[in-house]
């Protein structure tokens, strides 16, 4: 009997309920989408900062001119990306020129910002040249560069706006040989660049400093701090907006539920007139509200995930592989809040049930 009542009430006011349902579902959609985006924005923004290259530099300290090449392996053991660099002066057409050597495979992720015409890596007998070098010696791709001691074929022309523009970049071993640096167990580099994840930066730096007492393990403050700062600010902006919007939609939801009860004073009057207990009427309304709440938050949750997924795919396509940016965990909070508000708002409005006097209401006053 009770459920028949509830069911009929829903059937009878289909259009009114459809509208209430739409309003609630929209709120739940927005809440789910915002929560979803917020919950993994930090990870996604940190990925964006990888492009800035190294955030730790291992440089020689004291009287040393080089750092042990073993530093690269140590950094990689910490889960960081690391690449060795050697800088030396070579000669082209008897003019001095800076020759940089690196392990192209390892340096790749650290040098994303290079704008390269041609290939980004060079094998033995090949090299990349900076755009100033290319302009100075009038060099083109695939030409031979007469680098004394290690002639090479130009595979790419690099512009970075930095030191690379005036350098010839060769494979690590070639540069080591040109610089006369030891190989094998005592192999050394001029510099090792390391990129550690922003969250683990301090611990990676501390561990490397401990393992390499003879070197200077430095945090690149500008990169590290800007990353931390921007990520934090974006995160807190999203957090505050999410909270504000949740607060507003909650208010909206609760007023909607109150309205659903208030506009039915007449019905309450009739129910009371034919002898229904106030408690029973309140339970009737409450279960109606809860059904509406569950249905709308489920629908809103689905739609919200879709919106979050869509936003994630539009803005962060490259991290789509690591999950489409959908957080399934937000279902409980969103539904919980919606249902709690439905219950509170309905009950608050239901207080009127006790005060309604059927005779007055039904007379139309």
């Amino acid at each position, binding site marked *: 009997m009770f459920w028949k009542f509830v069911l009929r009430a829903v059937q009878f006011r289909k259009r*009114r309920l459809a*509208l209430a349902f*739409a*309003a609630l579902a*929209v709120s739940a*959609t*927005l809440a789910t*989408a915002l929560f979803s*985006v917020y919950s993994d*924005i930090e990870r996604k923004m940190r990925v*964006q900062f990888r*492009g*800035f290259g190294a955030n730790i530099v291992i440089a020689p300290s*004291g*009287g040393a001119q080089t750092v042990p090449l073993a530093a690269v392996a140590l950094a990689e053991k910490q889960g960081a990306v690391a690449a060795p660099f050697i*800088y030396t*002066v070579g000669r082209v057409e008897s*003019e*001095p*020129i*800076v020759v940089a050597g690196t392990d192209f495979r390892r340096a790749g992720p650290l040098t994303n*910002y290079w*704008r390269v015409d041609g290939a980004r890596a060079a094998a033995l007998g090949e090299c990349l040249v900076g755009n*100033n070098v290319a302009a*100075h010696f009038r060099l083109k791709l695939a030409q031979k560069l007469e680098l004394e001691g290690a002639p090479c074929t130009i595979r790419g022309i690099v*512009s*970075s*706006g*930095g*030191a690379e523009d*005036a350098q010839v970049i060769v494979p690590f071993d070639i540069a080591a040989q040109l610089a006369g640096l030891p190989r094998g167990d005592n192999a050394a580099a001029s510099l090792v660049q390391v990129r550690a994840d922003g969250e683990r930066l301090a611990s990676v730096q501390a561990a490397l400093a401990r393992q390499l007492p003879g070197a*200077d393990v*430095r945090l690149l*403050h*500008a*990169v*590290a701090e*800007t990353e931390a*700062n*921007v990520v934090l*600010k*974006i995160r*807190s*902006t*999203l957090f*505050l*907006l999410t909270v*504000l*919007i949740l607060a507003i*939609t909650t*208010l*909206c939801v609760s*007023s909607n539920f109150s*309205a659903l009860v*208030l*506009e039915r004073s007449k019905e309450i009057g009739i129910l009371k007139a034919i002898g229904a207990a106030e408690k029973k009427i309140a339970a009737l309304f409450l279960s109606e509200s809860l059904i509406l709440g569950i249905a709308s938050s489920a629908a809103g949750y689905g739609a919200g995930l879709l*919106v979050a997924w869509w*936003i994630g795919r*539009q*803005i962060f396509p490259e991290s789509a592989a690591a999950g489409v940016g959908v957080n399934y965990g937000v279902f409980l909070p969103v539904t919980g809040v919606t249902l709690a508000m439905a219950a509170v708002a309905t009950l608050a409005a239901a207080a009127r049930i006790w005060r309604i006097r059927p005779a007055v209401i039904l007379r139309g006053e």
Partner: protein
Amino acid sequence: MFFRFVSQSIRRSPRRKTMTVAAVAMGTAVATAMLGVMLDIGDRVNRELRSLGANLMVTPKARSLPVEIGGISYRPVSTQDYIPEDQIQKIKSTFWQLNITGFAPSLKASASLDGRNVPVEGVWFLRRFRGADGSLLEAGLRTVNGEWKVDGRWIDDRDRNDTAPFEAMLGGAVARRIGAKPGDTLQLFGQPFTVAGIVSTGGEEEDRIFVRLEVLQRLVNRPGQVDAVQVGALTKPEDEFARKDPTKMTPKEYDRWYCTPYISSIAHQIEEVLPMAVARPIWRVADNEGKVLGKIRGLMLLITLAALASAGLTVWSVMATTVLERRGEIAIMQATGAGNGLVAALFSTEVALEGAAGGLIGSWVGLLMAGWVGRAVFQTSLETPAMLGPVVVGAAVLASIAGAAQPLRRALMLEPAVTLRGGE
């Protein structure tokens, strides 16, 4: 008569009207807050990103390739290649001067310290000068590099002073190597220098010594000369258009490019005022800055769109509900001889009034919230365009009318008799 109808209707059921207005206000508040934050967040983040350091490097048009490792030059610099110090203030007189947040000239040399060659840079730390329009401007390392950690104090070179005491700031690695502390004295170029402070950046600055520009110019006998100028500029992320070659643009495209703060157009304008120099974007900073900014802008835009859509739907559904509830009223009006046009006008006026009231309250609350988010996160109020409020109120009114239109038309098409009998 018309207005009495409307005002009567509003006065008659104040509670229902309040709820409608409140719902519209909530939707509008969400929309305004999101828009307010979205419109300004790009600029805020752009400023935060400036702490990465310079994104443009200005160097003399060189006849020879620089041969430099770790700041030490392996070939005597040709003294013909330099930027005159008295010209560099012109950087602040370009079209995009307001986007240039700082610039720092430097002169490079090297000195022997403890038997090792150490690069020494003559720089402006924080120099004040008068701009072309007479305003007081600042330039120097501290305007480009934001927050370097300094143990000790910065050298104060507010005004040019050729008789200033010999002071130096050491990079952290140099200081560690020779065991220097602030207040110590060391010999550079045969002169005693007092260590004012020690800078730690983690970057190549750690291996440098910084002194006043005019001091180094005198010691290496290159008066009025500068080797490089770092420039920090707020830029618009590069898009397809920015990658076009300016020399191949049509005049119209060229104007558009010139008047957009792309890094390339700012560099171009610096080269215009400093014909002896080339300005190059430092892609490590410029490119990634653009990418991060683009992501943030795009993200906020989509979230705002989602919020706007839901706010619009909320307002629409609230208004549809109010009309739906009042079908009886419409039927009575029709039965007593009111034309469809009149009923529609009455209801639209009412709905528009409610929409405007809700929109006003909502946009006010929304602006407050956006301001609050700005202060909480960025420590400054966000700059929201003055048009935002009126536009949002207008949108709220439109959404209200749009929401009311469909149910109103349906109600008007029904026979009053049917509605009044209580049927569908």
